[in-house]
């Protein structure tokens, strides 16, 4: 049992805003009171107490990430090294940290839950095994569905109900938590060497299936299945100048259904080409503010090295042509694809400068912090361990102005950031890094410090240098265990995986089996991930 005393508590989900109060913990949960001789007390005077961070969109495990690791030896060479010790396993940090290092680095920011945002069913087993080796954080997975050809075939035939059962079956087969849609129809089109850029045009190979149809039917299925997390959506036309129209059109097509709009920064551009690219964050934020069915994460970028990894194959091919750097392309049978291209965001590059501003603008212009969360689409926009730099930019308008002054002149006319004075408060930071994403993921036990919540608690020094503050938690509690103490990782605990069991018609397997055996290279019985591949998973029944 544990009592954290004297710290300023920020628990926005329970309307606690910087009050000095005690937080009591027993059996891994927050409780109202603890008493007795065996209560350990942590004196948190001069510190702020946050619920553990929750990353709603990150790429930390699985086939695509591993492919990226293999492709970028130069990044590992320059990366932070973790040498093994009695507590820690060896590993590397950098742009694509190894599994154990990922857990250490997240804990080193005060994060305790992460959502791996793109898992094909075919590599779900691999993903879960990597997640099992990612300690200190709880984990969820979003399963890629919007280019699954067996599901699209059913949409083509108008069999929406059966498609829903098939989707639910796949979600359970992958032992996932949510449904992910990446460039709906576009990845399928990529297998014909094409893309799906117009929402109302049929996807190559189909006559009735359009990106709009995939988006609306899939969001409806997720709602009907009562999944805790709404459809996690990577819109069509990512990264392209002028894609704002597609993004707004997508929000309209959703027609009131819930959705989480991933890495919105990459979807808020105006202009006709790279030379005329401009920020459309104002238009996007205004529209988004009026859509209460939607949540979003920023997908902010920071200048420096990154590796772009996405199921969006056609975009990655374009990026490869733009940069002339390495390009990896994976085909994931009938389900999806994947592209990997290392990328360096440069402060001197006009396009990159606009991207940098757009990410911050969205965080500052979307007025409800409960609906926009801090992410960098790790490792695409920047590495997750650079989140404190963004927090500093959000909390300090003067520092932001200093950074804006360094941008190329050309970029300044194309962004809105110089005119924005808003500064985030600590309470708002607690919302965008923890309480908000926990709510979007539908995890009532995460992101707050009310009685009954998981005892995931981060204690930071109340340091005026917010970058230093959020980069070095003094203490971190994971499930009630003190894992970081005085800034060092002292104890290793495994995180758990949270999965959902949606309800679906068991007969769907009889429909699927013959198709699967005809079109896939593996045996049907080896396809679903067995339950015992996951150690100690929390299963959430749905429907």
């Amino acid at each position, binding site marked *: 049992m544990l009592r954290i005393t004297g710290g300023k508590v920020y628990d926005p989900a329970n309307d606690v805003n910087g009050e000095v109060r005690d937080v009591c913990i027993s059996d891994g949960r927050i409780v109202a009171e603890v008493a007795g001789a065996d209560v350990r007390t942590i004196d948190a005077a001069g510190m702020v107490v946050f619920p553990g961070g929750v990353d709603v969109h990150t790429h930390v495990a699985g086939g695509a990430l591993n492919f990226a690791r293999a492709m*970028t030896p*130069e*990044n590992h060479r320059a990366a932070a090294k973790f040498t093994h010790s009695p507590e820690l396993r060896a590993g590397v940090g950098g742009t694509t940290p190894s599994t154990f290092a990922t857990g250490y680095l997240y804990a080193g920011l005060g994060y305790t839950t992460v959502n791996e945002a793109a898992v094909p069913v075919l590599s779900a087993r691999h993903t879960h095994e990597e997640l099992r080796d990612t300690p200190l954080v709880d984990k969820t997975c979003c399963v890629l569905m919007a280019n699954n050809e067996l599901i699209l075939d059913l949409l083509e035939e108008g069999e929406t109900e059966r498609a829903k059962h098939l989707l639910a079956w796949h979600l359970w087969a992958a032992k996932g938590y949510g449904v992910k849609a990446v460039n709906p129809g576009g990845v399928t089109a990529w297998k014909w060497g094409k893309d799906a850029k117009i929402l109302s045009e049929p996807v190559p190979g189909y006559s009735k299936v359009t990106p709009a149809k995939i988006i609306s039917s899939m969001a409806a299925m997720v709602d009907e299945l009562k999944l805790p997390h709404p459809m996690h959506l990577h819109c069509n036309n990512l990264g392209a100048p002028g894609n704002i129209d597609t993004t707004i059109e997508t929000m309209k097509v959703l027609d009131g259904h819930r959705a989480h709009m991933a890495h919105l920064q990459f979807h808020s551009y105006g202009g006709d080409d790279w030379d005329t690219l401009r920020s459309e964050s104002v238009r996007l934020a205004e529209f988004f503010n009026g859509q209460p069915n939607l949540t979003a994460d920023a997908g902010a970028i920071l200048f420096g090295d990154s590796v772009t990894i996405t199921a969006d194959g056609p975009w990655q091919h374009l990026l490869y042509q733009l940069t002339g*750097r*390495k390009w990896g392309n994976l085909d994931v049978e009938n389900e999806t694809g994947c592209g990997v291209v290392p990328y360096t965001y440069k402060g001197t590059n006009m396009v990159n400068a606009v991207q940098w501003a757009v990410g911050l603008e969205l965080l500052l212009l979307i007025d409800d912090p409960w609906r926009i969360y801090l992410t960098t689409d790790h490792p695409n926009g920047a590495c997750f361990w650079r989140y404190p730099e963004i927090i500093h930019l959000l909390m300090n308008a003067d520092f932001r102005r200093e950074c804006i002054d360094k941008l190329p002149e050309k970029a300044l006319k194309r962004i809105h950031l110089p005119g924005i004075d808003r500064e985030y408060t600590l309470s708002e930071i607690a919302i965008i890094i923890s309480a908000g994403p926990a709510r979007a993921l539908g995890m009532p036990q995460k992101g707050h410090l009310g009685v009954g919540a998981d005892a995931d608690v981060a204690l930071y020094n109340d340091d005026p240098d917010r970058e230093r503050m959020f980069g070095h938690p003094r203490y971190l509690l994971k499930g009630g265990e003190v894992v970081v103490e005085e800034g060092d990782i002292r104890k290793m605990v495994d995180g758990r995986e949270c999965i959902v069991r949606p309800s679906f018609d068991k007969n769907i397997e009889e429909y699927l089996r013959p198709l699967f055996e005809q079109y896939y290279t593996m045996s049907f019985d080896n396809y679903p991930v067995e339950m015992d591949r996951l150690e100690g998973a929390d299963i959430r029944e749905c429907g």
Partner: protein
Amino acid sequence: MITLTLKEQPEVPIEAEALSPDVVAELGNDELRALPIFFGKRQLRLDDFFEVEGEASEELEIHGDASRVKWLGRGMTRGQLRIVGNAGMHLGAFMKGGAIDVSGNASDWVGAEMSGGLIRIGGNVGGQIGAAYRGSLTGMTAGTIVVEGSAGLEVGMRMKRGTIVVKGMAKDFTGLEMKGGTIILGGAELRTGAWMNRGTIISLTPIPLLPTFAYNCSYNPTFLRIYSRELETLGVSLPFEESEGSYELYSGDAAVSRKGELLVWKPAG
């Protein structure tokens, strides 16, 4: 001056990145003797392998066949490293300044990703000198490497700035994916300048050309008059007088940008 003498050839290559003027400049003899040397995965002491004389100097001299001693002068920024004998792999990798002089041969990755300083090799070198390590975007970005003998594969691979001189022959793929800088060759084997984006390769003898290099003209570039004067201070003589001959200019590699230049010396007559 600090003098190290190799006691005997180690059974496997040892890693000795501590042997750099930056590290030894302030150290007393006892501290020098205790410097870490990696022998496989084991960390041993410098005096397990070398006789150590002198202390606290930016001049470091190594005697013996150090062809199994890796990473000599890694990342050095100042001072002098002299090797009387041979040197092992990664000599002067990431070097930023100072000078390295080897009387014998050196192995692969000499001056890889260096950003300043001078490396002179009296004998032959291995491959990938001044190159980018696998996966990296850029090789050497400044500095000079002069080789009296021949060189191996991929000389100056992805180099961006700086000068490499190989007085003898270089093997295949010299200037592979080169982005800038200058390579001067006594001659070369196959596929010189493959995928070069920019930069200059000068050969003093005829070399086999890739079909993606196009002939432009024969001329005597003005810059060579100035450049050769600079090179003379390093003991490299580059012909430039019209009475002696001219250079054939080829541009390529057309498989990428066509902006690279390949100059081949043709003596008069």
